């Protein structure tokens, strides 16, 4: 009897099975916990949160935090900037990547090897932070919206993925269109594009995530607050929260109760600001990702076949 209990259908140890389940489940809980905690903090009563009375169960549920966070200075602007750069930037990337990828898949491309290497080479060296910075200034892209979307138009990596995919499309399809007199643009638009939709979807998703998550370009190349992205605003609010927390710590316990109350009220708003802005920035990803997960994985598999 014991033998039956110890082994599963394939004859492997049930104990090992259980351990695997436990380990991976713990890992998944660890991944989910920070998100859950932020949600709990944001929808719980602010006073309870700031006096440390909220753990894993939300208490005093309300949604005012999220609404007030959206009304914060610059938040709506930042939301629009983030959305705009994600949409426009992804579009630019798709256009650049697919056109170049298709063009290079054609053997008759003028000096194909040279120009292909011209692009691939950029993956292996970087000109450095400062020259890049100066370059953006010289190109008059510094502090403009185009800085977010134009440089990413040609991504060598995505281009390779797309070119590889196009090369797997049977040549006969294009050839018959060519014999019928269709030019490159028509063949590209009518045949290649529709057939390469899976790859386009994959590139689209990765590019969109990249645009939504971008932070350092705002950090060193934007000084106009109207161009701040949601990520950057979150970063700003985080800094304020830390400064406040640090001043609370350094003043130790020697504050009068009135000052303490005022500080507490400040701390309240800084915690709730931090968690609600964090929630606003996370929510799109949390909601959309589960539905698109299979495209991410499919894309990697297509890329892996190449590598």
């Amino acid at each position, binding site marked *: 009897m014991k033998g039956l209990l110890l082994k599963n259908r394939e004859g492997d140890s049930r104990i090992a099975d259980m351990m695997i389940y436990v380990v991976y489940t713990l890992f998944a809980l660890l991944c989910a916990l920070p998100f859950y905690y932020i949600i709990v903090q944001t929808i719980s009563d602010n006073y309870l949160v700031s006096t440390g009375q909220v753990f894993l169960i939300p208490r005093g549920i309300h949604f005012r935090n999220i609404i007030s966070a959206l009304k914060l200075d610059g938040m709506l602007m930042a939301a629009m900037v983030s959305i705009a750069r994600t949409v426009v930037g992804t579009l630019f990337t798709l256009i*650049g990547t697919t056109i170049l990828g298709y063009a290079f898949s054609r053997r008759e491309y*003028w000096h194909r090897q040279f120009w292909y290497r011209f692009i691939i080479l950029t993956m292996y060296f970087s000109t450095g932070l400062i*020259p890049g910075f100066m370059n953006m200034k010289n*190109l008059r892209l510094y502090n403009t919206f185009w800085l977010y979307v*134009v440089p990413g138009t040609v991504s060598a990596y995505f281009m390779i993925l797309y070119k590889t995919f196009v090369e797997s499309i049977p040549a006969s399809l294009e050839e018959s269109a060519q014999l019928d007199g269709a030019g490159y643009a028509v063949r590209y638009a009518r045949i290649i594009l529709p057939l390469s939709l899976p790859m386009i979807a994959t590139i689209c998703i990765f590019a969109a995530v990249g645009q939504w998550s971008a932070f350092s370009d705002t950090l060193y190349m934007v000084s106009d607050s109207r161009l701040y992205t949601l990520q950057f605003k979150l970063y700003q609010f985080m800094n304020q929260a830390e400064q406040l927390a640090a001043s609370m710590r350094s003043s130790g316990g020697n504050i009068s109760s009135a000052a303490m109350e005022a500080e507490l009220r400040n701390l309240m708003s800084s915690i709730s600001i931090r968690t609600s802005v964090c929630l606003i920035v996370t929510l799109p*990803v949390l909601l959309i990702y589960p539905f698109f997960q299979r495209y991410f994985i499919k894309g990697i598999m297509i890329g892996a076949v190449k590598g």
Partner: protein
Amino acid sequence: MSGHIIGTGKRFRTLKEPGFRLFLFTLPFLVMVFLFSYLPLWGWSMAFVDYKPGKAISECTFVGLKYFNMLFNNPVKYRELVRVMKNTLGMSFLGILTSWLPMIFAIMLKEIRATRYRKILQTVTTIPNFISWVLVYSLAFGMLSVTDGLVNKMLIKMGVVSQGINFLASKDHIWVKMWLLGNWKGLGWSAVIYLAALAGIDQELYEAARVDGAARHHIIRHIEIPGLLPTFVVLLILSIATIINSDFDKVYLFANAMNKESIETLDLYVYNQGIKNVQFSYTTAIGIMKSFVSIILIVFANTVAKKIRGESIL
């Protein structure tokens, strides 16, 4: 393929070739690549002059290899460089040493036969990969902050400690903490990638092994790990090639006055000295040397890969 210009009669033959027209279609994009990836090379000249912002490079005093020498001859700068390289290499190395972890997690994930549950695990563990480091920082702050981080609150409640532990603003175990954060974010996704690779292993091998009476650990040792090894080796070589790089967003966001000593990587150092302290010439010189070292590493890595795999990974 390309047209030769032979005599006036055929002067414009090239221009009419379809391959050339194709090239013209793509010219705007090639120009963009030039503008953003090659043109900045012009800025390398900043390393050879005493650059002052506002002046054109040509107007600045030429100083030759002054800034390159400064890195090695100036004792203060040299010590900075050593410290920063130690941090960079230390953190990269830690990642390389543990780069087999995703493989093991993938093998574990595959052993979870309940499909629905496995998909849920996949989804939950891969979400962190798609959020920005700003969000990770914000979430980490929410969990680990001294006053209202969940971890500290629980520890205090359970009586383990009387005061919150300062995880984020301390100088202890920085490399390990960064490694932990990196894994929280990336392990789930890397495991899923390896899982996809596992799916590519010939099923007949499994069946043959079972018929021969192989236990699970036999299968793992003799089929799955060897099946994943090629992918692993390629990724390993690539990470050696990028050993002097670091994730800028990660180190920038988690750096503070307390941990700066151990967390400042080469990239962060270049940012701090270059943009914040406006040391353009100095940091451009560092950047140039970094580029050369990178190229050497990549060529070396590719050579090793060729020897092992019999083909290039470039």
